[in-house]
């Protein structure tokens, strides 16, 4: 049992270490990506134009048209 717990602990430790490293690297980065598989040219990220955060979608709850306000 203690061996299994050690494995769980080590896995969590690696995850925390990796995510901390990623946070440090990405926080100081320009928003570009690390792609490390093969020599193919990386395309621009399709959901991002520039570094600005995407605004919330105005029609947040589904795409149905909003009904008229009942107390008009």
């Amino acid at each position, binding site marked *: 049992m203690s061996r299994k717990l050690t494995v769980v602990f080590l896995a969590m430790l690696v995850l925390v270490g990796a995510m901390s490293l*990623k946070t440090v690297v990405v926080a100081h980065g320009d928003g570009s990506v690390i792609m490390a598989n093969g*020599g*193919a*040219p990386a395309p621009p990220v*399709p959901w991002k134009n520039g570094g600005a955060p995407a605004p919330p979608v105005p029609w947040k709850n589904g795409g149905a048209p909003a009904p008229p306000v009942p107390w008009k």
Partner: protein
Amino acid sequence: MLGPFECFVWLLCTLLEAGVVVCAVRTRSFRRYFLLNVYMGLSFLVSVGRYTVLRHSGVDSLEYAYFYFYSDALLTIGLYFALLSLYSLVFDEMKAERYLRLGAFLLLGATAWFSYEIVNQSTHRMLTHFAFELSQNLYFVGLVLTYVLWGAIFKLRESRTRLIQLVLALGIYFSAFAANYALRNLYPNLQPVWHFVTPLLGCILPATWMFAFLRVPEEARLVPARLAVVPR
């Protein structure tokens, strides 16, 4: 539009990926390093697929972008399992196979969950975001795991030359991409240089693994440092 240099490096990288599998088969090491060869074979197929999509749709097209990021997530998962197969080889005498498997799946599951929690904030194109985020997170997990494995090799005084070379190559590969990323952000004005350097880094892993399979025999051993005998 791709220039001749990018095309040449991409072709070279693809040929090296196929070369790794060919050399492993030729030296009868395919089964022993099965997951490494599966990863390299998959990389070769993905390169061919990416070229086909790029030729039909162009480098700035959505089709190429989606194919690229989904295939990258698949390859990163493949690389993760290839790395874990190296763990199995290093720890095979300790009979820790069961614990390694448990740790591997736990870590992969936790990374996937972490990636999901990040993309859960933005529901727009969630699946694509998830594939992208998982790929990035697994890259960093792989980086940390490679350094841990290198530490274990030192501690256990591993002497199998080919195994050491395969792990070192992986460490250099991960570190080179991380260093490239850091330098790119430190010196953004050197963009023309990074434009040439980044694709070349992709050739490191297939080139070094091919060399390891081709030139380093399986039975080759490194001589551990001897203890100094002080005469009294």
